């Protein structure tokens, strides 16, 4: 801060406003550790969804809420499926009972001991927040059944039913992007969808800390995230046991416990509750992966493909017989406000006003010898198509060939195709 430096230039009202803002702002306190943990979890989900490679440069302006596949519709009238989660919650529970931090903690402890058929468990580093504290509830602790300490956490929030987010959270990531041992998504009798992922804390496996995770989304938009590790902390903590405490089946069952949903229902409805998805945020609902399939040069064998329901991001792993190439595409609407950041003064401008920028450089995910070739385009209406190709089937595995199977010219043609409109 350079208050002193600026204050000379301020009029008396501005000075008082500055003082007033500092007084008001500094009065706000929160659980910082919880914020950091939740932020890292969000980041991890983002990584899983692989929106980062081409997106990060404009991340600040991106809206990820969209109209995607309506996998999760509230039961009953599908026409009401786009209603807000907040409304559904209000309608279904007029006066939800608050759920305390203690209750959440006891529930998790019970599941860890009795739920796993055991009789003994030691709990340390317990942190929890109930619904009576105004913010999203969570519980996290370190559990030891005598076989080694393990960090376990549950977080709860609301999400827009039927949104891209709801679908992506419960969709297993592509193997091209994430190493994991097993992943499966199942639908429960009440219409909830739950994904259980048995993966690793570090994508590059420099330490084999296991991170197992269940993500459950109900038709009402209740979202429960259960996470566990075979170490006493997510990172920088030695492996203490071969596996995290809950098995995959137990993760699925515990994530579906009613108490977490009760807690979500008891969360205050606030102005940030998910609202009707905006159709403008991700543009036209075109499957990116399916469109990409129609645009890659003929004669390439496709060995892996992204989620055809995703209208913002898609990828293919292709092979021309000389090694695998990962090709990924991001499609975004309303990006005009970050145009200056993405396209420098040296960007090419086509006759119709479309801007084109190209980058050829090393990959960013640690794969040995991996290069990343990118063509970034933005049309005058602010719609952006970014395509990147790698000389490997994944960004974090070693190069399988000298250069990607597609040339920059081919990437450019794909990005500029009218099919994205």
């Amino acid at each position, binding site marked *: 801060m350079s208050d002193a430096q600026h204050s000379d230039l301020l009029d008396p009202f*501005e000075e008082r406003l500055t003082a007033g803002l500092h007084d008001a702002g500094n009065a706000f306190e929160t659980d910082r550790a919880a914020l950091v943990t939740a932020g890292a979890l969000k980041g991890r989900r983002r990584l899983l969804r692989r929106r980062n490679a081409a997106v990060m440069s404009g991340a*600040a302006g991106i809206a990820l809420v969209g109209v995607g596949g309506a996998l999760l519709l509230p039961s009953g009238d599908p026409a009401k499926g786009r209603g807000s989660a907040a409304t559904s919650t209000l309608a279904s529970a007029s006066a939800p009972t608050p759920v305390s931090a203690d209750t959440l903690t006891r529930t998790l402890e019970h599941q860890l001991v009795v739920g796993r058929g055991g009789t003994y468990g030691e709990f340390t580093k317990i942190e929890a927040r109930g619904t009576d504290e105004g913010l999203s509830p969570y519980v996290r602790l370190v559990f030891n059944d005598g076989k080694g300490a393990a960090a376990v956490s549950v977080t709860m929030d609301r999400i827009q039913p039927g949104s891209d987010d709801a679908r992506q959270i419960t969709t297993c990531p592509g193997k091209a992007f994430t190493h994991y041992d097993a992943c499966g998504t199942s639908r429960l009798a009440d219409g909830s969808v739950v994904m259980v992922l048995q993966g690793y804390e570090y994508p590059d496996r420099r330490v084999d800390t296991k991170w197992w995770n269940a993500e459950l989304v109900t038709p009402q938009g209740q979202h429960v995230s259960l996470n566990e590790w075979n170490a006493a902390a997510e990172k920088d903590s030695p492996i203490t046991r071969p596996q995290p405490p809950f098995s995959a089946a137990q993760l699925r069952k515990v994530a579906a416990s009613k108490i977490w949903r009760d807690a979500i229902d008891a969360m205050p409805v606030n102005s*940030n509750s998910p609202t009707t998805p905006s159709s403008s945020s991700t543009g036209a609902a075109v499957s990116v992966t399916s469109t990409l399939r129609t645009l890659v040069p003929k004669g390439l064998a496709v060995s892996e493909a992204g989620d055809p329901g995703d209208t913002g991001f898609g990828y293919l792993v292709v092979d021309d017989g000389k090694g695998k190439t990962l090709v990924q595409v991001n499609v975004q609407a309303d990006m005009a406000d970050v145009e200056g950041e993405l396209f420098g003064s040296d960007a090419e401008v086509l006759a119709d006003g479309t801007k084109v920028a190209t980058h050829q450089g090393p990959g960013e995910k640690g794969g040995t010898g991996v290069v990343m070739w990118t063509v970034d385009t933005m049309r005058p209406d602010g719609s952006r198509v970014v395509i990147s190709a790698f000389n490997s089937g994944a960004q974090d595995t070693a190069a399988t060939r000298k250069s990607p199977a597609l040339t920059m010219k081919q990437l450019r043609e794909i990005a500029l195709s009218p099919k994205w409109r």
Partner: protein
Amino acid sequence: MRRQERADAYEEFAAARAGHLYRSACLLTAGDTHLAEDLVQETLGKLYVGWGRLSRVGNPAGYAQTVLTRTYLAHQRRRSSTERATDLLPDLPDPGASGADTPLRLTLLQALSRLPAKDRAVVVLRYWEDRSVEETADVMQVSSAAVRTRCVRALGRLRELLGENLDEYARP
């Protein structure tokens, strides 16, 4: 930077900045602590993803503030495209969290809540973050002239709403 060092550096950065980001977000949202928390989580999530590159460009704290402001503005844009304007005030801070005697703080937050989102962002960047007009323009990706216009308008509105209320903060 080696990977482990990078992970450590992120953790350290997030832990050190989370409090300030949250307070900034509380002012941007005029005291809507739920939304503020979500915005900070979203911001930290974005930084987590781009940390490798980010940690090399320098001034990650400034960049974090930029991401927060833009995340807030994007949120407001989404809301405004799907919702009509409302006179309802957002949740005000929990009195327990901000001390018992906070009428002035509440008045200030209420006044902030009456400003359009972009005007509020300008006020927060200029008078809470102490950014210059040019820096504010960079963060918001608008011209310096637009920042000046918004700033004059916002100050006029705040003078009107707050009147003599801020006199308590007058320098002796």
